[in-house]
């Protein structure tokens, strides 16, 4: 008996192998922590640099030659209107596409092409969407370097990823709900409208919000269509314009800047004091992006429980 227990204790080669294996845990853990801590550290640096600049004035001032006076106001208006245009154009199209693929598309080559095409479109670099927007919206459609042109460009950019996320959400709905409705004599659309969509909506919303958070930080595509201009007014329609469609549309035709473009402009400014402005703008942008991510996570968790 005693002999047995001695034999089971690791010795020699086995002990060495076990030691290496146990040590490897800390190596892999270290690598994991490294990635996360680099980001935490950079976040800390940004807050330290930007906090001094962050104030109400920073949010309400126009850009200026003087770093302390320069603010984010037009960029925030620009981001707001741009996101509104992007949301209203991309989301209906994306959800419609996802419904078509999952529920209506004939299972033939056309559908395969559409699906492969979407996967590839999702991987097209944003700057290519930028030249597409520049050629089609800015030049060909004569929209100039306007909010509309920017919003449409971003919409085209996020449609593929929104479609893919929505498809995933629709596929999560148990087929028994669809079959149950169809067996009761519901039409295809009735089954989708009353049984599939209500249950897919949380997943669709999560995916959509994540796409929007991608669009909100997009810089290259907007710089391509010419969003890099010095703007000292509030882009987009004013409050009073809501009553007047012509004025509203005119507002959407204004040129614009957005928060990420402002970050770019301040980052590359040779005057070092503007770095604090860039950092402060990054804090504002990240608060927005994180709020969107949090919202998506909350929706996901909330509905998972039900």
């Amino acid at each position: 008996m005693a002999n047995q227990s001695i034999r089971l204790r690791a010795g020699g080669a086995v002990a060495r192998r076990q030691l290496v294996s146990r040590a490897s845990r800390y190596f892999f853990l270290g690598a994991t922590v490294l990635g996360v801590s680099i980001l935490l550290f950079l976040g800390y640096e940004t807050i330290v640099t930007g906090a001094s600049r962050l104030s109400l004035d920073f949010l309400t001032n126009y850009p200026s030659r003087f770093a302390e006076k320069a603010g984010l106001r037009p960029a925030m208006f620009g981001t707001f209107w741009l996101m509104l245009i992007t949301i209203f154009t991309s989301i209906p199209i994306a959800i419609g596409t996802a419904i078509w693929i999952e529920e209506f598309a004939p299972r033939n080559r056309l559908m395969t092409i559409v699906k492969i095409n979407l996967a590839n479109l999702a991987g097209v670099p944003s700057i290519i969407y930028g030249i597409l927007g520049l050629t089609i919206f800015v030049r060909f459609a004569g929209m100039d370097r306007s909010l509309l042109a920017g919003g449409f460009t971003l919409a085209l950019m996020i449609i593929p990823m929104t479609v893919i996320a929505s498809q995933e959400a629709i596929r999560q709905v148990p087929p028994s709900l669809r079959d149950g409705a169809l067996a009761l004599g519901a039409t295809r659309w009735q089954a989708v409208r009353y049984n599939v969509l209500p249950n897919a909506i949380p997943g669709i919303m999560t995916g959509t919000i994540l796409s929007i958070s991608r669009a909100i930080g997009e810089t290259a595509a907007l710089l391509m269509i010419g969003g890099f201009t010095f703007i000292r007014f509030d882009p987009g329609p004013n409050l009073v314009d809501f009553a007047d469609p012509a004025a509203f549309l005119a507002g959407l035709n204004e040129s614009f800047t957005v928060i990420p473009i402002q970050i770019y402009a301040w980052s590359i400014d040779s005057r070092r004091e503007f770095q604090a402005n860039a950092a402060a703008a990054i804090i504002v942008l990240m608060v927005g992006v994180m709020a969107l991510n949090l919202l998506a996570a909350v929706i996901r968790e909330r509905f998972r429980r039900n």
Partner: protein
Amino acid sequence: MTVADPGDMNEALKKRQFSRPGESVILFVLTLCAAVSLVTTVLIVGVLVRESATFFEQVSFKEFFLETEWQPLFEPISFGIWELVAGTLLVTFWALVFAVPIGLATAVYLSEYAHPNTRKVLKPILEALAGVPTVVYAYFALTFITPDLLRPVFGADQVNVFNALSASIMLAVMILPTIASISEDAMASVPRDLREAAYGLGATRLEVTIRVVFPAALTGIIAAILLAIARVVGETMIVAIAAGSTPQLTVNPFEGVQTMTGFMLQVGLGDAARGTVDYQSLFAVGMMLFLITLAFNVAAHFFVRRFREEYE
């Protein structure tokens, strides 16, 4: 129930062409939505092909692919794509040098070592990192990595203000979530019994990971790396801000280089007049970029499918 007359039943079961007009309108609208993505592709390819065709009327293929000088803006004008491709390659190479080992080690930790609860906390954090706008990474590269890390360590006389390495480091941070997350998914879907068989033969955890899990998940891991490469090659802001705008053939990561995307942004920002060669060079370079990223994406999807076939 009475049995209906067959004629009546035939009539009753008929498709009613006009009883549900809403249905066909809806189907039509949905089909239109789906067409948008096809039209987008056609437009992208159409725009790139048309404008690059005009470019190649003025600049020969021979010059584009065989010259080594990219100097579109001042005399002597020369359009040799290789300096831009080399810039992209250099930046991508160093990004992978950092991101692949760290990303894979993270994936291994999450999949093979971490307690399920730890994994549940770490993985969403990791995936949230993928949502950081790249202009933010670009700012870090320019204002932190170069002045506070690279120059103090390697010497200010060695490291250019704009250098490939600072861009690569931030690109690596950018793709870390992609590599770690997809590889982790791949490792996690390696069947349990493969692992148990190895443990049953007396292998340690590390040996199981390296000899069994890693090879079994290899196609998935390759897919992750290919997707990451496509993202790095297509990324604009980080390289445009941090890597500089000097097209050159160099392997020294401390020097500034210009990538394909960096050049495109430069043309987009400068008001190159429509119809000039330098404006059209934007599309020729865009075409190259599109084809390269497409190739990597297609390859990645091929490996994803291979992996699914193996284990699902």
